[in-house]
């Protein structure tokens, strides 16, 4: 893929100098205070992007964020690209367009992973991308009024620009949003809008690209007159893991086209996040990938800490890693259960993995106070130290049997129970005839395609790319621990399954190394820095990311020096992994679609945000 051009300056170690020698004035360095990276003229964006991919070797477009600089009068698209072979801190380049008449060239031709992200930018920010093959709204619906992520767009329950709101308790009496809204609920309409003579846009846009016949396997379908059916799966469907919808064109039972339709759980994390203070966003990150709230906390905490230059104490780091790895175990365990559910085993395997999950959730509840939405991490540490005792939910007064010493509980869990149960699951499942028959060779995707579609996490590692941010762009104390990155090479459903099982072993390995060090650091400080209500983050931008169970979770944060983030963009692995769904499903049977979606292990809270 990489072809070094001999006549050019071949020193690619300094990307800016290299690009400037090739493109001249088109490329300039971002010199704003607190910013880094390259500013590219939109007219040559595609050429520059191609050079960045081919010559500089940044093959993974990780994140495409959009920022509305209201006062300066432009929209900015920020692209973060990485090299999956060497990892590192990557490169970011940006391009700008006027606020009044926005337009930018599409990068789908260079990195197909830009597909959904550009649609999101069009939907929420209103930047049209010239050359995008399928530019329509993705999270809201066709016909929605306005582009909500613009700084000057106000939602129906708008109160003030930034929290904490002064207007919440005027005169000691709360005024709720619905009390001031004429409709009594969270809606607003353009001025003069009535239902007379108005008709909804409906789902025409979704079906537009689906029903047109195309040639499949070299035969013109119109000539042989086979029926092409458009089938809707979801949003209320047992296989879609929540409120996800796929519109599938099938020829007989074979999938010819597939379009994911999402946004049924679009909860406006980013808009709410801009109103919140930095710390207030911590509990919202819990609700992104709600099976892995500790990992989400981790990614957000390190992103803000990197902006602050905040140190973290050793004990806090150890607790964080323990929690993140237990979360990975929980999340992959949930995957095993529900992947088997998708393959037809119904709830039985899930019941086994949920039992183990509940034990770990007991620990989470004991340390943070909540089973699922832990809100446990703080900038500089964690909210509480490990408690002395851990109880199950059925604790009666004086019931000593369920009040277990924390370290004994952890010892039992990590050294005894988790390896044993995992081995059991492995013995029953990994060579299971039905699993092998359903999974081997299904939905294979090459490593080049996977990278091009921006796939990260276990799905990428199942194609043979050992891209794991814990090793590739190390954060926290992961460098000090001994663990492997499991890789498989076929990229099919079976490999995705096996990679996750192996990762659970590695998580246990890390936990086993953390535990003695936790005992050593007993009593040390678990929270460095000031315990303030909020923090003031220095002006600038930052993209922080961490390896979540589902893939790379990134936060692109822009601070204007105030108490609230100016921009809070989430690069969620589930959302971007879905870009490859159509490629993975094409040519397979409609029954496989359920399993393929299950193998991506999406969580809708994170897909729709």
């Amino acid at each position: 893929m990489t072809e070094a051009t001999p006549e050019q300056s071949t020193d690619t170690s300094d990307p800016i100098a290299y690009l400037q020698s090739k493109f001249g004035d088109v490329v300039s360095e971002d010199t704003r205070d607190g910013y880094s990276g390259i500013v590219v003229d939109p007219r040559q964006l595609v050429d520059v992007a191609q050079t960045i991919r081919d010559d500089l070797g940044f093959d993974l477009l990780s994140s495409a964020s959009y920022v509305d600089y209201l006062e300066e009068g432009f929209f900015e698209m920020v692209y973060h690209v990485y090299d999956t072979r060497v990892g590192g801190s990557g490169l970011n380049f940006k391009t700008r367009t006027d606020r009044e008449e926005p337009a930018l060239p599409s990068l789908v031709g260079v990195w197909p992973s830009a597909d959904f992200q550009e649609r999101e930018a069009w939907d929420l920010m209103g930047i049209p991308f010239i050359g995008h093959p399928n530019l329509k709204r993705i999270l809201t619906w066709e016909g929605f009024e306005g582009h909500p992520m613009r700084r000057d767009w106000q939602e129906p329950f708008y109160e003030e620009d930034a929290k904490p709101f002064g207007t919440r308790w005027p005169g000691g009496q709360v005024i709720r949003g619905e009390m001031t809204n004429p409709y009594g609920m969270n809606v607003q309409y353009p001025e003069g809008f009535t239902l007379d003579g108005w008709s909804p846009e409906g789902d025409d846009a979704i079906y537009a690209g689906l029903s047109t016949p195309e040639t499949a396997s070299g035969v013109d379908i119109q000539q042989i007159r086979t029926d092409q059916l458009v089938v809707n799966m979801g949003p209320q469907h047992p296989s879609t893991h929540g409120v996800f919808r796929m519109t599938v064109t099938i020829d007989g039972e074979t999938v010819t086209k597939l379009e994911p339709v999402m946004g049924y759980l679009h909860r406006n994390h980013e808009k709410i996040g801009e109103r919140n203070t930095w710390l207030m966003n911590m509990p919202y990150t819990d609700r992104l990938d709600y099976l892995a709230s500790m990992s989400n906390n981790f990614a957000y905490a390190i992103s803000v800490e990197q902006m602050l230059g905040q140190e973290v104490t050793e004990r806090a780091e150890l607790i964080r890693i323990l929690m993140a790895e237990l979360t990975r175990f929980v999340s992959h365990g949930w995957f095993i259960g529900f992947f088997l559910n998708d393959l037809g085993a119904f709830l039985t395997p899930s019941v086994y993995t949920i039992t183990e999950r509940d034990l770990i959730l007991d620990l989470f509840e004991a340390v943070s106070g909540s089973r699922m939405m832990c809100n446990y991490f703080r900038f500089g540490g964690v909210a509480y130290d490990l408690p002395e005792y851990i109880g199950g939910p059925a604790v009666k007064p004086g019931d000593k049997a369920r009040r277990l010493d924390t370290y004994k509980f952890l010892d039992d869990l990590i050294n005894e129970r988790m390896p044993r149960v995992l081995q059991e699951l492995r013995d029953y499942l990994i060579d299971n005839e039905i699993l092998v028959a359903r999974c081997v060779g299904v939905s294979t995707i090459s490593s080049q395609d996977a990278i091009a579609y921006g796939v990260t996490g276990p799905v990428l590692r199942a194609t043979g790319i050992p891209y794991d941010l814990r090793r590739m762009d190390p954060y926290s104390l992961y460098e000090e621990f001994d663990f492997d990155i499991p890789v498989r090479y076929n990229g099919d459903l079976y490999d995705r399954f096996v990679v996750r099982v192996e990762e659970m072993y590695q998580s246990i390995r890390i936990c086993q190394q953390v535990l003695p060090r936790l005992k050593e650091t007993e009593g040390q400080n678990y929270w460095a820095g000031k315990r303030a209500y909020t923090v003031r983050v220095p002006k600038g931008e930052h993209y922080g990311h961490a390896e979540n169970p589902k893939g790379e979770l990134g936060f692109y944060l822009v601070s204007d020096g105030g108490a609230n983030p100016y921009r809070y963009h989430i690069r969620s692995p589930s959302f971007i992994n879905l870009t490859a769904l159509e490629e993975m499903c094409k040519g397979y049977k409609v029954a496989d679609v359920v399993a393929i979606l299950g193998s991506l292990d999406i969580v809708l809270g994170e897909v729709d945000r």
Partner: protein
Amino acid sequence: MAEDQFTGLNNPDYPIPDELKQNVAITTLDRLYNWSRARSVWPMMFGLACCAIEMIVTAAARYDQSRFGMEVFRPSPRQCDLMIVSGTVTKKMVPQIVRLYNQMPEPRYVLAMGACASGGGPFKEGYNVVDGIDKFVPVDVYVPGCPPTPQALIFGFMTLHEKIEKQSVTTVPWYRRGANEPVPVPVLGPDLIDVRHAPLLRAEAQQAAEQAQLADDSLAYDEPSSLEEASAD
């Protein structure tokens, strides 16, 4: 047969002969009807967001929902008695939820699980979030929490059972004369449109038009005065 076999059901005001006590139960029709209904409430297999995870956990081994005769999750609304609205209701999703509710046969119950389904929760201010499913469908039980623990959800189920047991076959709405009106399905327009708001929308539009007219009039009124001023100079 155990003595407590009919506890809760058998409450005779009649003396039962000793030899029949194990075999005969005398009760009211309401009690029998509600006893059987409350112990076989089938929920819909329908998860929206985070709360759905806790709902699944409630059905799993540790909390074991089947103790209440509720383990049968049905994917089809036609076979369900209970809709657990487990998570944030978004504007894009609410037409489907209302449609599912309309498809459920009577007697049907709705349980709003968690803060979001009850009133918007932490996402209430979001532009795509409905502040509570009770704006559209009638809710029987609200379960607080974010998400509610399985224990809280089970308490919600028990509250629902109590509610069912208090109903009377003579007054329940689904045996009354006349068809049961479905809830009008909301429409996605420039924003979510509850079609019941159509007169309100018209009134608002009229008011806005009148205000615009008023603004025009005041401009028209200003003009001659400025002309007068101009001629006075």
